[in-house]
């Protein structure tokens, strides 16, 4: 029995509730490329703590409203 760690995010949902903010607009606010936003949204890349804060700041919410950390038993 091992533990599995997973980081999920609500970026897509938060973009939708922020006047349907585009990935490009979020990328501009977080000062990263659109490619990075696409990867984060798709769960293909876990951002650094700094970037996670920048994304949360772009939405005006707390970091745990954007990212969630789950531990599941395998």
């Amino acid at each position, binding site marked *: 029995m091992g533990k599995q760690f997973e980081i999920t995010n609500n970026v897509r949902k938060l973009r939708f509730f922020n006047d349907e903010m585009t990935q*490009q607009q979020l*990328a*501009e606010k977080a*000062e*990263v*490329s*659109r*490619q*990075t936003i*696409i*990867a984060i949204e*798709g*769960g*293909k*890349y876990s*951002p*650094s703590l700094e*970037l996670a804060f920048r994304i949360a700041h772009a939405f005006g919410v707390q970091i745990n409203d954007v990212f969630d950390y789950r531990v599941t038993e395998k």
Partner: protein
Amino acid sequence: MSYQIAKTITNILSGTGVLVVYLFYVSNRYQAGLLAMDELQSWSQIMLIFIGIGIAVAILVQIIFHILFSIGMAVNQSIKNGNCNDQDLEKTIKMEMVEDEMGKLIELKSMRVSYITVGIGFVASLALLFFDYSAFIALNVLFASFYTGGILDGFTQLYYYKRGV
């Protein structure tokens, strides 16, 4: 297609192009009897010339790519907004071309693949010399490993951009 992926594909194509031209040129000259296996001075001269050509082609292709990419962005903006504002366009291009943490991480990982390829090429060329193959073969294996490393670097970047890091 994002800027990073388009740029990587362009790099792969230019690297492959130079390697193919080199192989074509060398095999033609060799078959025509203009180059002998033991003429190391001529081989090194050709390789030096092709290293120069490789650098020049890479710079030229990047310039052309960035011009075409900027034109593409301008056309895209004109279609979207009905007009093309220079300041907005500059801002959009800057944002597309930004190098962030994910790009740097992918670059590091792909560079590792590139170093490993060159390392394998170097060891292979030494092994060839050890097993009494001619220096011309060892030199060409080493030369090809540098270009192959560059090409694999590009493919690794594409893989990580598609699959994630």
